[in-house]
């Protein structure tokens, strides 16, 4: 036992470190953590205080009833306006238009959903972009390729 002083010191040091960690952890756990589950309960209220950015599914119809009606009868009916444009809050505040809404004419927007992929279910119409545009090899895809033929009425009511 006489020659094990260093081992006892190491053991003591280890216990001190562990105690420090356990005590330190106690102070680092965020307030209200675990009050209603394995998360910080206050986070809920911080979220509730935030202004909603997205509108309800028919939020655009209040002012764009023509487009909304057209869309409702077409194949894009399940696709919300905000998916292709932008969130309601970027355009309308307190029932007034405050800024221009984004109009996304890029082919990437359509490709997101219509590019042919093996993993994509057949119930969504898919095209091989380059084939559909009849591009020759090496030719780049024009930025606003799709809206040249699928115009806004066709897009809102395909």
């Amino acid at each position: 036992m006489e020659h094990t002083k260093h081992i006892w010191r190491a053991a003591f040091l280890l216990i001190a470190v562990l105690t420090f960690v356990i005590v330190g952890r106690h102070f680092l756990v965020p307030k209200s953590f675990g009050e209603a589950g394995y998360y910080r309960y206050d986070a809920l209220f911080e979220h509730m205080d935030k202004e909603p950015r997205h509108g309800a599914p028919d939020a655009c119809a209040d002012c764009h009833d023509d487009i909304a009606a057209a869309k409702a009868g077409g194949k894009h009916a399940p696709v919300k306006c905000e998916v292709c444009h932008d969130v309601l809050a970027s355009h309308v505040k307190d029932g007034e238009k405050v800024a221009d809404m984004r109009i996304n004419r890029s082919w990437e927007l359509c490709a997101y959903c219509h590019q042919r992929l093996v993993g994509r279910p057949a119930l969504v119409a898919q095209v091989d972009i380059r084939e559909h545009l009849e591009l020759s090899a090496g030719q780049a895809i024009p930025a606003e390729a799709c809206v040249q033929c699928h115009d806004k009425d066709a897009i809102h009511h395909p």
Partner: protein
Amino acid sequence: MHGQSLNFLFPNDVHIMWSLMIVLYPYITGLVAGAFIVGSLYHVFGRSELKPVSRLAMVASLSFLLVATLPLLSHLGHPERALNIVITPHFTSAMSAFGMIYAAYLILVVLEIWLLFRSEIIELAARSTGIKRGLLKMAALGVYDISDEARRADHKVVTVLAALGIPAACILHGYVGFMFGSVKANAFWSTPLMPIIFLFSAVTSGIAMIIILYETLSAVNGRKISGDCLQSLAGYLWLFATVTVTLEILEIVTLSYAQDEEWLIVGPLIRDKIAFSFIGIQMVFGSLIPFILLGIVVTLKRYLTAGMRNVITFIAALILLIQVFSMRWNVVIGGQIFSKSGIGFRENYVPELGTREGVAAALCIFIIPFLIMGAFNRLLPLAVEDGDAQARSH
């Protein structure tokens, strides 16, 4: 943004999300566990011929352990949130269990290395001056007892720690395989064999890494390589590599023979998509060639000169390191190449060069352990003195 709203619309498993970093992560933890097992062969199982690499193995294990989490941090981003997993651990989360295993293992390895190098720390403190002396004295915890009794006590504790370390190292690495094995939706991963394959290939890579480090260290220090030690390492490497490859082949053969629905996608995956990295690198180049080379070293040792043996073993070890890396690659990337729906394949994955998860970042992370070992070696030599070791061991 439209991107966020799409997820509910389509099964969007089009991209390969787990990048090169997720390949590197099990590779590095494998080296941690493997190196530790080599050290334990000496410290616990009394393979005294492995004495020359006993310290090297422990320090290598620690060095890789210190960077083991970096690939994850780089992959996930937000490294400042990393500690949340420790501060509010959830006990049903495998990831937070990993945090605890990692911490326990780290303590264990640090303690063990401290005991192994205690005498050197004290001797070095006596020889140095100024701040260095103060730091070294602190590292010795203010006890300068290097009597035979004290060393015997050290040795006992080291043996116990190393014995505890074996299950810890196995869990640390088996967990990685467990993570993949428990991804049920993936036909290539979800087999209970996964943790075992990961474990064996970890030991393979660990032994191979120790062989390379040992030969390099000996060359740098101008020391003679111990023939017994290298011969024994080559034997272990041969054994573990053979078992690993057998398991890897068995897994595929089972899948193929059972001809269940997953073979419809796994078959073409191996034939067309990862033929080069799986059949070419992992099986033929990475397994067959080292098997032959090490077979020569093990069975024909009487006909080989020491120099030839060292070179052949070195080459075999290097190839096996590549083999294990390609195994990680094939599991992580290969397993993601087909869609979870099993209908077809996803887009190809080519790692970027300069991004956070690119090749350059991976190389930087992988180099750090070697820098740590180099720095360690300058302060406290990793090579074991023969006479000195006599006193230490019994």
